[in-house]
């Protein structure tokens, strides 16, 4: 498949079934790899400071399911979550992967990076002699990787781990690496965004990114733009409380300044999303999530973030 067609498939708004993209990815990648004799993507996955929700989100991928991603798309060489090896043997596997696949592997980082106290708030591996902090590991692996992918909002921008008062001095991966980081943000990530980004990396290299480093394939438009309840907004019909069927702007919805394709991508085998559940979008893909979104149920103009001038975050619409 040509890149142009793939891009179209990722950003299509309407289809017979909402999982056209994820259903299509596996055959496209398999076909591509067969024709060009390309190997799977070597991936090193580093878990740092987060809730572990992004590896759970990844387990929730459907069409392709997790086993198919392992089979056809990636060689997951190191992952604290999935690997069978443990202890010093796991560390050995990591070191070997870095030396053998230097300049070829994709580094996936899940979680924010604490920087205070030399990063001691997150130690990824301890040896008899020393502690390897997330800060050290991400710098070591980051300079050896072909591409760096931050999965989830903590790894992308700091996220809930870096929420005020941020006593661990946590930051996103981009702030500790002097290179391009592909930010696949979300709390958690939607598995389609992540698997779609992997497919793009495998077939066409780095995808086109927005100014926050996110693939335009999935983050080009605001939630508000394609929201099923947009007509309520345009007609000024607002929900009076959670559970109502009208526009959730009155209940704190962040849709107007949040970029993602949730309204038509949907979640967990594409069954629902927060607004369909009669609650507001809380802007979990944003650079300033969660501080820019709280109080969650207060309308956007009255949120705490709006009171402080100079706060990070963009106004899209």
């Amino acid at each position, binding site marked *: 498949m040509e890149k142009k067609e793939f891009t179209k498939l990722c950003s299509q708004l309407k289809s017979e079934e909402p999982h056209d993209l994820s259903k299509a990815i596996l055959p496209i990648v398999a076909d591509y790899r067969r024709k060009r004799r390309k190997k799977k993507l070597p991936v090193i996955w580093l878990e740092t400071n987060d*809730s*572990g*929700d992004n*590896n*759970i*989100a990844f*387990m*929730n*991928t459907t069409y392709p*399911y*997790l*086993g198919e991603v*392992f089979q056809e798309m990636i*060689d*997951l060489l190191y*992952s*604290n*979550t999935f*690997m*069978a*090896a*443990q*202890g*010093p*043997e*796991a560390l*050995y*596997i990591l070191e070997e992967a870095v030396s053998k696949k230097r300049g070829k592997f994709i580094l996936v980082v899940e979680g924010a990076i604490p920087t205070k106290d030399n990063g*001691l*708030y*997150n*130690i*990824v591996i*301890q040896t*008899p002699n020393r*502690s390897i902090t997330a800060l050290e590991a991400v710098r070591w692996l980051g300079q050896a990787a072909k591409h760096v992918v931050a999965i989830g909002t903590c790894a992308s921008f700091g996220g*809930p*781990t870096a929420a*005020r*008062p941020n*006593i*661990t001095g*946590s930051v996103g991966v981009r702030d500790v690496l002097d290179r391009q980081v592909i930010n696949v943000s979300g709390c*958690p990530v939607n598995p389609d965004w992540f698997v779609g980004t992997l497919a793009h990396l495998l077939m066409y290299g780095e995808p086109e990114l927005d100014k926050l480093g996110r693939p335009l394939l999935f983050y080009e438009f605001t939630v508000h733009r394609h929201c099923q309840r947009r007509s309520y907004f345009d007609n000024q019909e607002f929900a009076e409380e*959670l*559970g109502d069927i009208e526009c959730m702007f009155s209940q704190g919805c962040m849709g107007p300044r949040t970029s993602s394709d949730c309204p038509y991508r949907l*979640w*967990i085998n594409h069954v*629902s999303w*927060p*607004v369909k*559940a*009669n*609650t507001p979008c809380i802007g979990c893909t944003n650079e300033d999530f*969660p501080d820019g979104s*709280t*109080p*969650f*149920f*207060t309308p956007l103009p009255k949120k705490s973030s709006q009171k402080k001038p100079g706060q990070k975050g963009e106004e899209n619409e």
Partner: protein
Amino acid sequence: MSKQKIMFSPITRLSGLLSTEIILENNQVREANISSTMFRGYEWIMLNRHATDAVYMTQRICGICSLAHGAVASYLLDEMYDHDLSENAQYLRNIMLGADFLQNHIRHFYLFSLPDFVQMPDKPPFHGQSLTDARLNPQDNQRLVEHYFEAVKASQESHQILALFGGKAPHQHSFVHGGVTVAPTADKINQALSLLRNVSEFVQKCLMPDTELIARVYNDYFQIGVTPCRLLSFGLFRFGEKNEKFLWKGGVLEDNQLTFPQIGLVKEDITRAWYEKEKCEVYGLEPDPYKPEGYTWVKAVRYDGKPFEVGPLVRMIINGKYNGGTSTMDRIFARSLETLLITELMEKWLKQLQPSPPPLNQKEIPVKSSATGVTDAMRGALIHSATLEGEEVSRYNVITPTVWNFSPKDQYGQRGPVENALVGTIIPRPEMLFTVLGRIIRSFDPCMACATHILDCQGNLQDKVVI
């Protein structure tokens, strides 16, 4: 033979990051220092936020047991706002919580624990497995490997039940204070039932027989990783207009005496944890990663001065559904048994759920400024406790199941349950060390993302919880 100090790190296949230092002498574990190496300071993050932010914010403590935090935060807010829960809200909430338990338990057994007993295919992410004590015959082994990948789908479908009602998972949106924001429509109920039938079939045809097979082939693990029988549960599946009834009752079991848990007896100790008693305005504590005697971010939580084990095994024993010991294999077995029981309960609840508008009734103003919410989460007893000033949080405490099971030594040198399970273990051959330790540790279903918690030194928990 002289004493050897061995570092087991990283302990993979769990949520978060975990290490343990072991002292080995004459092939026996003499001492264990279990170490959670990540700290996020979540209680500080909750400060000065609106009370009703608690459900969505605290779910982000943990990705694998997300809704347990959302649920207990909802119970806490229900008490503060004096909500009345409709019957439909009660059923729907428990269906959603049950679905999150199913995905957790299925994922734990297959994705995390199975490679401790089954020879996985030698390709990523299973390469370099070095299972030094593989005992299954090739046919059984192959079948269980196939079930690993079927479990991927069954756990995804469990999460799909949650997302059908909750909008997404992890970190669902509709289970909030005052009820549930989603209408349980006939089509949703039927979709959920159909998904549940797939999951139930998997549990009956794969999880239960696979658990029995592993328990039979590795039956020596009924004698390995045994903990002192001190068990604690707060109860699970809250019903009633005021969340006042627990379907599975809580209890404290010690010396064959079962008593009701009194929250006021819960205390924490920071002797070996990376905290210092400094002048911190709210908590009277500061993290100190350089503390020489510290070895973990988990504090030593004690009930009436003693360490207690929590988890599915404890719930099953206290509720008379499992009659066994407190070993590695008992913990594994009880978790599978609980999974089966939850699928049966969920089917019943889904049939009792009446199609209706969203079962939600939220009040505007809190009538109580301080409350404590409890439930059992997937891994055991969970407490959220909060104090408000107006409608803003001035103090928020979380004590997770991980803090009970993975507790370090306290000022009296008492070990926590995991350390107790490790100490005394005999390692038959040196190359089996990590295999044996890994099996024992994973039977507790470690989740270190949950290890983030604080309890202030001066103040204690509210002792008003009715259990």
